[in-house]
């Protein structure tokens, strides 16, 4: 792995170049990894992603909780030297293996003894450090996170927070000892909830190791994944992140997974975070929200989302956004998307995800430009207020609307006269 900083400023984020696997493409940071489920970008086959979202090399964010059953097949596949990205349809792309799916709420609990709970579709499994390293050896990702207990959030007790640090230390003790058995680059975990003392401990545990033991940091334990990350209060989150950053060396990338809002991500970038994921775009799509927030100053007021479930758009034959160049906005209308929602059709989330990923990835291009030109504060301001007089709300509420038959058209009944 190679990480080189191009620029960094006190309060305006840093630009970097990250190459995770030798011979693969260099990726610019701040970087947006593609979150996946079962190895695939949610709803999008590789062909659809490449044709309609991006043909550029991506960094795929794999999650063990959605891929654990593939370990056996991947062991066999990797004997042919083809790589896990190839197995999931994206040959050549770099990848990072995480434990938990940032798109879904991770249940709490199961933190006994020396095992880590792994919540998969089939229920709760238990992962020992040994078993984890076996799976990493089978899957052979380019980069993987250290085994850690991240089951903490703003409301956790000190006891729980401390346990998460202690258990992580124990897991990592094993992993630092075994890491030479796998080729992949290790990410040192930093856990400890919102407790500055705990976080410092967790960082110390990592920095005690020889510098070449790991290639970067993964910061967890701020939320329970899923929508909980979109509801975080920045005044709580940012101080603790800043506290961590102060203790980290500059030349290692910092990865912070989760559906942080666009505004929170900007603040995290300002503090010095480098790598994020697209789980926010997933959460929006899943809850039938099209991202419409503006990141280019045009003087107009904007709103963060278009709610596809809103009956008001039933006959709006205009695209989600009039100047968006994505497939969904070029070829489809709000009315059609609303219809796909009402009929529970799979094409609905597909089209929404195409738009939301396109939008979010464009956002990150703008972020990198802003960091380069040192105009990040202006971008933060624009995203915060969207040119209105107050802050906009980027949190995502779950879509709890049920599709009732009463709202259906009368169909043939209209003729019954």
């Amino acid at each position, binding site marked *: 792995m190679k990480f080189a900083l191009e620029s960094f400023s006190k309060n305006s984020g840093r630009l970097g170049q990250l190459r995770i696997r030798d011979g693969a493409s260099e990726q610019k940071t701040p970087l947006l990894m593609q979150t996946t*489920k*079962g*190895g*695939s*970008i*949610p*709803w*999008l*086959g*590789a*062909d*659809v992603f490449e*044709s*309609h979202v991006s043909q550029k090399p991506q960094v795929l964010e794999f999650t063990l909780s*959605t891929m654990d*059953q*593939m370990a*056996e*097949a991947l062991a*066999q*596949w990797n004997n*042919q030297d083809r790589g896990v990205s190839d*197995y*999931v*349809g994206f040959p050549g792309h770099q990848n990072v293996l995480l434990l938990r799916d940032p798109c879904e709420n991770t249940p709490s609990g199961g933190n006994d003894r020396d095992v880590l709970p792994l919540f998969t*579709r089939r229920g709760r499994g238990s992962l020992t450090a040994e078993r984890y390293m076996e799976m990493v050896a089978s899957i052979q990702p380019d980069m993987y996170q250290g085994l850690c207990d991240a089951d903490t959030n703003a409301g956790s007790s000190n006891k729980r927070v401390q346990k998460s640090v202690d258990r992580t230390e124990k897991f990592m003790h094993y992993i630092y000892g075994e890491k030479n058995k796998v080729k992949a680059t290790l990410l040192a975990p930093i856990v400890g909830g919102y407790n500055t003392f705990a976080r410092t401990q967790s960082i110390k545990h990592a920095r005690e190791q020889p510098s070449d033991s790991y290639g970067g940091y993964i910061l967890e334990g701020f939320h329970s994944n899923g929508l909980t990350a979109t509801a975080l209060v920045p005044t709580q989150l940012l101080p603790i992140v800043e506290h961590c950053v102060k203790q980290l060396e500059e030349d290692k990338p910092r990865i912070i997974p989760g559906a942080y809002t666009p505004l929170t991500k900007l603040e995290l970038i300002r503090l010095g975070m480098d790598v994020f994921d697209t789980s926010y775009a997933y959460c929006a799509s899943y809850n039938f929200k099209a991202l419409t927030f503006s990141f280019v100053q045009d003087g107009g007021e904007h709103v963060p989302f278009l709610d596809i479930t809103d009956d008001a758009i*039933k*006959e709006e*034959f205009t695209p989600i956004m009039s100047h968006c160049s994505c*497939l969904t906005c070029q*070829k*489809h*209308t709000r*009315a*059609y998307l609303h*219809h*796909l929602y*009402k*009929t529970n*059709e*799979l*094409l609905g*989330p*597909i*089209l929404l995800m195409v738009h939301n990923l396109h939008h979010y990835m464009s956002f990150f291009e703008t972020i990198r430009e802003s960091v380069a030109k040192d105009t990040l504060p202006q971008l933060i301001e624009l995203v915060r207020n969207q040119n209105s007089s107050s802050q906009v709300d980027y949190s995502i509420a779950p879509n709890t609307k049920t599709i009732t*038959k*009463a709202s*259906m*058209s*009368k*169909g*043939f*009944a*209209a*003729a*019954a006269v």
Partner: protein
Amino acid sequence: MSSSKIPPLTYKVVAECSVSKARAGLMTLRHSEVNTPVFMPVGTQGTLKGILPDQLIELNCQILLGNTYHLGLRPGIDTLKRAGGLHKFMGWPRAILTDSGGFQMVSLLQLAEIDEHGVNFRSPFDNSQCMLTPEHSIQIQNAIGADIMMQLDDVVKTTTTGPRVEEAMERTIRWVDRCIEAHARDDDQSLFPIVQGGLDVPLRERCVSALMKRQVRGFAVGGLSGGESKHDFWRMVDVCTDHLPRDKPRYLMGVGFAADLVVCVALGIDMFDCVFPTRTARFGCALVDSGQLNLKQPKYKMEMEPIDKECECSTCKRYTRSYLHHIATNESVSCSLLSIHNVAYQLRLMRTMREAIQRDEFPQFVRDFMAAHFKTDPIPIWIREALNAVKIDLPADLERKEDLKEEPTAEKKREHLVEEQLTAS
């Protein structure tokens, strides 16, 4: 009304099999050319499940089917009208065929009753009386704007016997006249009548005769994709194609499975539709020449080959059976990936048949197909008899020298049963 105006449907026979009744044709519609024989995937609610219109164009799909009943409910006629029709609403630039809505009403609504006026039902939601008349079905289909529309027919269960069958056939003829009368867009849309008559040869013949007296640009054969025995099924298709005019396309509704498609092409059918390929994809099943692979089965967990090495679809170019095994029914993207493959399979099958007919090598194609499809299992008698009737002989049940790697016959029979259940609903 000038004669120089191009009609909304022209059809010409491009090649005919010198042995059977198979033909290859070119149907030109307002929105697209369609090469026949053609399989029309079903996009019930204004979308094919999990497939982008662009992907369908890549697969060279020229025409798809929309269901009037579902579209009438959602998004509803008013929205469709304001959108400028279904093509614009769903962003599909090529051809569309709509059914009348009658079949869905009868099959989905247990409270439907048919009388001379139309199909009646009492809405279970608000107890209101609703009726679908021939006129109203045409009105809705005119608003949807499909290139081809179907008459409202009086459809009976294929297992029905007795005077009801004749009543339905006669009523269907009366209703086609009402449909023709109500059809307001004959310059843009073509209305097909539907041949009924159950499993009774004279009734079918009378129906074909009567319908041929009407000015229409194509014909459909209905009432034949339910639970009837295959022996009766093929005979009715054969009777219809014997009498229907040569120079107009014939559409067999609700068919289907690969073997049925091949036989019915041999019997002279040009157009087909079926939910089977897209529906079976949702259950993790992929279509191949030998039937279908249920990718959820443990044996595919470690198979690193694509579904079909010969298939050129985007799924087979990128994904292994192993990967698809793991995500089938777990990740919704698998539904898209398998649907793409299954539609590609059906379209490739039709294209291969067209090419064989054009080279006048269709009987050999049929023999090769049946061998690949049934492998070491005996070929069903009804298929032999149907092909025999159009002078295609199949070799005696084959003995292959390869290892018997395939599942025993009992399991294959169960698979076919599952297939039938999937399409019957």
